[in-house]
């Protein structure tokens, strides 16, 4: 609140004011205090970042600001005032008049936050007419087109009749923002608005929010688990942990010289694009040395391309999908992966970076032979597996394993985690249940869980723990190659860091070769020796990871790097200006 730049705003009455807010959920095991004695204010036109990991109470707080806690079992005390409305005590009618009109909310998942069965126009018009009952349909429609145009939807007058599924994720988030803007609210509350999006799209959405805030004079509350996401967009930061505010202050002060150890911990967890693989390795090694680790130190990794035979040779693979459609059912060919070649050496980590739709997941599925390549060849350990029938492929699966993106859906909810992890052993013919059990428990311990977790079901675990389980399942057969497809993108920053550390340790201990697929450049840099940058099914740049990051050759790589969030607020703003320049200069870099 008391930053020198926003000094003149201090005189204005705060548009959002929260005092001693506590939110409690009564459960069978006693009360759960989701939020405890939280207080903050946001001035008119100001911007506040609320940061914390899942379970910190930040989402519960956002819902309470909208009065959306009503009708749930949440018990609330304290005071919330939004543009003069007392959210805790007002009647439902007053709250409804406030929602969307004084304060609008943008949610995390743009894929599921729009009604799939109504056109976006219908949903926007509805929002407008709710608060402007006197306005006619034509006026509401005009306004809807106007806001769609404002948030950067091309051809808004035509697109207004489209359904949500006809838009990409980033476009849907723009539509949701437009829906929030339609009644010109005083506050825009964005709860993890970019978590489900790619880096470049994330940058675009954040830029849009920043621009709208400045142009329309709205206050912005930006909620995220990632400090780097809020760094360039807010004046003030509130760090939450277990329902309490641990630190609050000017964004430069909090990020520059954090006072609370938790803030420092969060900052340390943020993957930084400027940290090299070597630095990261050295840091992890040093940290490990401090702990007793029973595994003998591995010899230094082979340098790779020194005449040694590669573990995996991928040559010119293509994957074609037929898209049906057209009036006469004609089909067009679409190459999800279009002529990709690379070699992978034992003990190496190959990072594959790209936005969604770049073909990186299709590529990993082909290497895994979950998909049969349309063209090209894949040679694993000197054996051509490109068109190997499933029956012959099965024994080889022992050596190639995969860790999937979504730890919530990649574990069978009806199997105990022990059964899930042990299943590959069973499938490969192991019949000794006792042996399976002991090996699973050993591995559970190795990935940082308890052996006694064997009989628990996945729902009892957090996202990070589930990803550890998924990693254990991939490692039980002692594979040579592990493909990690966005293994940490569904996780909080701090959890992300822990899982990445675990992967790095396991790579040494199990002598693994990794293919690491992700859209987050910083994460990829920290773990990879070499990087492939993919765009529209093709490799646009490849090379030693430090080289690619420090001296990117292809404009697409540069664009990706400019989109990566950074922690320094001033640098973040510089990047934003750079992005604006890139967008202005390159009309083909269309908004996604």
């Amino acid at each position, binding site marked *: 609140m008391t930053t020198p730049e926003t000094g003149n705003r201090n005189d204005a009455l705060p548009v959002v004011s929260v005092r001693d807010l506590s939110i409690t959920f009564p459960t069978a095991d006693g009360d759960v205090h989701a939020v405890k004695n939280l207080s903050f204010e946001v001035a008119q036109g100001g911007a506040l970042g609320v940061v914390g990991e899942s379970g910190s109470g930040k989402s519960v707080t956002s819902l309470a600001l909208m009065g*959306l806690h009503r009708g749930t079992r949440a018990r609330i005390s304290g005071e919330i005032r939004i543009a003069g409305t007392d959210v805790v005590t007002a009647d439902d009618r007053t709250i409804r008049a406030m929602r969307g009109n004084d304060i609008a909310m943008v949610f995390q998942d743009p894929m*599921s936050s729009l*009604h799939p069965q109504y056109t976006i126009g219908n949903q926007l018009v509805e929002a407008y007419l709710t608060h402007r009952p006197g306005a006619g349909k034509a006026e509401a429609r005009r306004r809807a087109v106007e806001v769609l145009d404002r948030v950067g939807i091309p051809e808004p007058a035509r697109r207004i009749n489209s359904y949500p599924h006809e838009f990409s994720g980033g476009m849907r988030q723009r539509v949701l923002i437009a829906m929030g803007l339609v009644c010109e609210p005083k506050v825009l509350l964005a709860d993890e608005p970019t978590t489900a999006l790619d880096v470049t799209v994330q940058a675009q959405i954040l830029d849009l929010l920043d621009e709208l805030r400045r142009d329309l004079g709205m206050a912005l509350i930006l909620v995220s688990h990632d400090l780097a996401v809020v760094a360039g967009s807010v004046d003030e930061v509130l760090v939450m942990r277990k329902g309490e505010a641990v630190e609050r202050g000017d964004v430069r002060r909090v990020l520059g010289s954090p006072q609370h150890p938790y803030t420092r911990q969060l900052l340390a967890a943020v993957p930084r694009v400027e940290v090299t693989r070597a630095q990261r390795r050295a840091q992890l090694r040093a940290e490990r040395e401090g702990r007793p680790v029973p595994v003998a130190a591995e010899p230094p990794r082979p340098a790779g391309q020194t005449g040694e035979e590669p573990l995996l040779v991928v040559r010119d693979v293509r994957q074609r999908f037929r898209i049906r459609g057209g009036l006469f059912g004609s089909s067009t060919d679409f190459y999800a992966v279009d002529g990709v070649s690379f070699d992978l050496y034992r003990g190496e980590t190959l990072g594959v970076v790209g936005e969604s739709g770049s073909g990186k997941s299709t590529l990993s599925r082909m290497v895994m032979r979950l998909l049969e390549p349309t063209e090209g060849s894949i040679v694993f350990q000197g054996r051509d597996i490109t068109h190997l029938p499933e029956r012959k492929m099965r024994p080889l699966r022992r050596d190639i394993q995969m860790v999937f993106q979504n730890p919530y859906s990649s574990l069978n909810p009806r199997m105990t985690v022990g059964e899930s992890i042990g299943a590959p052993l069973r499938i490969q013919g192991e019949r000794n249940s006792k042996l399976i059990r002991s090996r699973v428990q050993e591995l559970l311990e190795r990935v940082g869980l308890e052996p006694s977790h064997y009989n628990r079901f996945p729902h009892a675990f957090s996202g990070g723990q589930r990803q550890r389980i998924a990693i254990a399942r991939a490692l039980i057969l002692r594979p040579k190659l592990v493909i990690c497809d966005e293994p940490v993108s569904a996780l909080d920053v701090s959890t992300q860091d822990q899982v990445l550390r675990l992967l790095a340790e396991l790579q040494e201990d199990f002598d693994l070769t990794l293919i690491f697929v992700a859209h987050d450049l910083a994460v990829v840099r920290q773990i990879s020796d070499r990087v492939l940058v993919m765009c529209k099914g093709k490799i646009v740049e490849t090379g030693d990871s430090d080289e690619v990051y420090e001296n990117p050759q292809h404009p697409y790589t540069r664009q990706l790097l400019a989109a990566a969030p950074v922690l320094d607020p001033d640098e973040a703003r510089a990047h934003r200006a750079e992005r604006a320049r890139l967008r202005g200069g390159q009309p083909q870099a269309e908004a996604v």
Partner: protein
Amino acid sequence: MLRYILRRLGASVVLLLVVTLMTFVIFYVVPRLAGRTTEQLATMYVGRAPTEAAIQATIQRLNLDQPLVLQFWEFVKGIFVGAEYTFGNDVVQCSAPCFGYSFQTYQEVFPAILDRLPVTFSLGLGAAVLWLLGGVAVGVVSAVKKGSIFDRISMGLALAAVSLPIFFTGQLALAFLVHDWDLFPNARYTPFTEDPVAWASGLMLPWLTLAFLHAAQYARQTRAGMLETMGEDYIRTARAKGLKESRVILKHALRPALTPILTIFGLDVGMVLGGAVLTEQVYSLNGIGRYAVTAIVQSDLPVILGVTLFGAFFIVLCNLAVDLLYPLVDPRVRAAR
């Protein structure tokens, strides 16, 4: 879209042919597999006077001495172009669509079915409207007021209703609603064109009985669907817009919950139009279902065959209607085609 409709229509015709073949096989081929001779078969179909001459005549008429393929061909041909039957010296024309004639009454099957169609249609469509509206309304209220007295009582009733057969609820309704309390007249069919009021009041009791059974299932389905959609993210978005709760429920939550209901509704209506056997039997309504029961009791195979095909026809028709309606209800289906 046109292409899709044509493709679906073509598939429906093929499906009906397959149903015809299977029905034919069940009634004409399976008995042979069990060791019946042609004479024995003919004896079954000959009716009450199985004289040697009558049996031979029956064999002739039904082509029982011909190869099976030819029998099937004659049967299918009859449906499309009609057939001729000889009774001694008389030649009887059976015009298309010809499903043969009853062994018992010597009536042609198709006109007999057409005669009974208005009864079954009136019963089925009336009940369908009642159970759809009633079931969905109860389901919505139950879901919104989850855990309330209303929810518990209506879900308890619904469980009872799906478990109780119509001949039980029907008798109860007759005993109490008609005889003891005199709320409704006894069930009786008056054509709509003659007297709409008598039509409705006479069918009220069977409507209620039939609707009760189905409404229970719809209430449970709607409730489950509503509870699921009420937890969706877009419901939160709708609330965050400042919409009234009633609009959130009726516009945003109900529509997705109704999508699967549409599917079972198509099936159920098709089933009922093929003959609401138990309801017609309990209330002595002379519809297709009752016709089928009589035929089964009397081993009147052409009638059974005809009624089966008719039922299949309605189920296929209603399913086709549902499939064509689906893209209107859920735009995402349109994209998938």
